[in-house]
């Protein structure tokens, strides 16, 4: 199962990410970025959110900008000028790509045992979760043998994103479709109405952006070169543990 390559200076290269994980990771990253930008383009057409089945215009939940006209600046929308039709075209194309890609990953991860081996925290990890939080706050990242597997916070975050936020954003998006609503009444009921689903869609997107910022910050803090190498080539380089040597 584990393929190690000994490198100079006591470092070890571990094959961490199989090809399918690397490909689905990058397709997911691209899709999410374009979905976010085209999503803001779509939101610009009516930059207000409501709770419930309908839009009670006098009682919005959140209003962006003045509530009339574009609320999000051109540089963050796709396309970079106000164009709802094009925004929808980009959004639905990459929504398809995002869903098909997500399914591919989920089927692989669930059938290959990757979830069990790499993402489910061990009993020991759960017991020491407090220490892990403390170490993280001090920006101390595991080295040596400990770096072979994800730490418990990483595991829980990835699980929450992969099996919480990503399905949630897809389902709340589908709920807004008047076509699917004719078949999937129960989904609309679960979200508490179409406009609630639209609001949940936006909040989930915002949460994903926060995850993304932390994810990128963690990559930068843990060593951008090593981290990028591993998600591009699959090989993750472990430095010898200084405390041991």
């Amino acid at each position, binding site marked *: 199962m584990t393929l190690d390559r000994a490198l100079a200076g006591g470092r070890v290269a571990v094959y961490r990410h199989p090809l399918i994980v690397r490909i689905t990771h990058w397709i997911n990253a691209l899709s999410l970025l374009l979905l976010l930008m085209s999503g803001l383009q*779509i*939101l610009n*057409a*009516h930059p*207000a959110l*409501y709770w419930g*089945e*309908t*839009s*009670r*215009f*006098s009682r919005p939940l959140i209003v962006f900008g003045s509530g009339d006209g574009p609320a999000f600046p051109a*540089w963050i929308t*796709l*396309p*970079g*000028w106000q*164009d*709802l*039709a*094009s925004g*929808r*075209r*980009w959004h*639905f*194309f990459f*929504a*398809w790509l995002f869903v098909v890609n997500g399914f591919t990953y989920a089927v692989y991860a669930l059938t290959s045992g990757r979830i069990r081996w790499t993402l489910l925290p061990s009993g020991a990890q759960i017991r020491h979760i407090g220490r892990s939080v403390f170490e993280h706050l001090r920006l101390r990242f595991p080295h040596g043998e400990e770096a072979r597997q994800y730490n418990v916070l990483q595991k829980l975050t990835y699980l929450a994103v992969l099996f919480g936020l990503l399905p949630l954003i897809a389902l709340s998006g589908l709920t*807004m*479709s*008047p*076509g*699917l*609503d*004719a*078949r999937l*009444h129960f989904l*609309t009921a679960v979200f508490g109405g*179409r*406009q609630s689903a*639209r609001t949940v869609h936006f909040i989930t997107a915002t949460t994903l952006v926060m995850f993304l910022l932390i994810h990128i910050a963690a990559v930068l803090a843990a060593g951008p070169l090593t981290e990028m190498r591993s998600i591009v080539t699959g090989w993750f380089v472990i430095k010898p543990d200084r405390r041991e040597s």
Partner: protein
Amino acid sequence: MTKPAGVDRRRWLQRALALAGGLALSACDRIAQSDRVNSTLDVAEGWTQHVQRLLLGRQALAREYSESDISEEFRANGTTNPDTDEYNHLAQDHFAKWRLTVGGLVQRPLSLSLADLRRMPARTQITRHDCVEGWSCIGKWTGTRLSALLNLVQVKPGAKYLAFYCADTLELALDGTGQYYESIDLIDAMHPQTILAYDMNDRPLPVAHGAPLRLRLERQLGYKMAKYIMRIDAIENFSGLGRGKGGYWEDRGYQWYAGI
């Protein structure tokens, strides 16, 4: 006269960043304007339509609500008054002189008054209206079943779509297009909830919502539901209509299949 190196470097960095940002933005815009990119993105519309048709079939009904769910404020979008001499003339006596012309690929072309339509098989439904902009309102609609009208005029075998021609001009373009029109296929036309609505919330359809007649196509977005209908033609394809995409908004980049 030497400036500190740091200032130069900072200015250089600022310029480089501005240049890179500008290049990235203009590259994005160029990609977003490319015809080939847009036609590639359009394939997703076909996938959506096929999968939704497969899941929904011909009969699945849009959800219907109770009287208490009806929205107090139902927003009117697009044209809220055609305001042409011809339309104003018709509106003056509550559309008594208005006629709906049904033609094209049909066995029995017809011309119907509002009273004729009111005598035909009708349906009342309280449904949710989803605008492409993102908002939703619930309203009560009563109208002639489109299927009943089609049985009356008998669509010829070659016909695939119905085209709706409206009294309003949203934007008069240089190429002469701009008159509102829409089209739906015969699968949607025969759906039990597809009606030509003449009443809204138990009163004659207001001008803002398309008086005297508007289409209700409950499983799609609002822009498909043509208002101020004057003529309906059974057609084989969109080639003779507007810019050829099957609708006013479709000609301006929106999806013909608006189930999402």
